[in-house]
């Protein structure tokens, strides 16, 4: 059983629509991260989330993006007004703390914007 489950595994959306990607970590960790990987390119950091607050974000993570942990369990990434260039694999990762031991990635959500 995966330690970090992401849903959906694949989402197709029309340009301009909003999407919500979900991550369900099984273990009780405090640190969560979102990364994305555009097809054929490297994995890029988006945002880190600690204790229900954003602790660090990259230049990619602009006002179009937001993260929440609405019920203390699920961890969501919302992308407003999607663009074609948002098409990518989005990975959630979790960590036990500001160290890297046990830094585990979820199975990913493939987002396709048409």
């Amino acid at each position, binding site marked *: 059983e995966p330690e970090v489950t992401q849903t959906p595994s694949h989402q197709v959306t029309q340009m301009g629509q909003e999407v919500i990607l979900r991550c369900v970590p099984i273990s009780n960790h405090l640190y969560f991260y979102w990364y994305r990987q555009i097809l054929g390119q490297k994995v890029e*950091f988006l945002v880190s989330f600690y204790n229900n607050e954003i602790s660090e974000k990259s230049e990619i993570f602009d006002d179009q993006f937001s993260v929440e942990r609405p019920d203390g369990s699920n961890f969501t990434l919302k992308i407003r007004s999607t663009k074609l260039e948002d098409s990518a694999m989005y990975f959630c990762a979790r960590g036990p703390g*500001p160290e890297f*031991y046990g830094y585990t990635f979820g199975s990913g959500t493939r987002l396709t914007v048409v």
Partner: protein
Amino acid sequence: EDKVVQSPLSLVVHEGDTVTLNCSYEVTNFRSLLWYKQEKKAPTFLFMLTSSGIEKKSGRLSSILDKKELFSILNITATQTGDSAIYLCAPGGSQGNLIFGKGTKLSVKP
């Protein structure tokens, strides 16, 4: 600006060969360097290296870090077709985010 350079970008070998994958980095407030294997989807964890000169081993894979020269290598001995994947090097800084290289695509032919 943080930078991670992996080499070679791709490599084709035959089963039984030994390969060495390289990773050089420049990362602010470096803490650890992680190696991942990526096949179809998510990166799967291989090693975490924090101290220089201490080799980590797992079966036919091993890795070592040189914090003075800012590089790491990943060795795979007696390669098998199942080793075919993209190998990602990802040093991490104090904020907990990983900076990924472009990866080395390894193809192992029977």
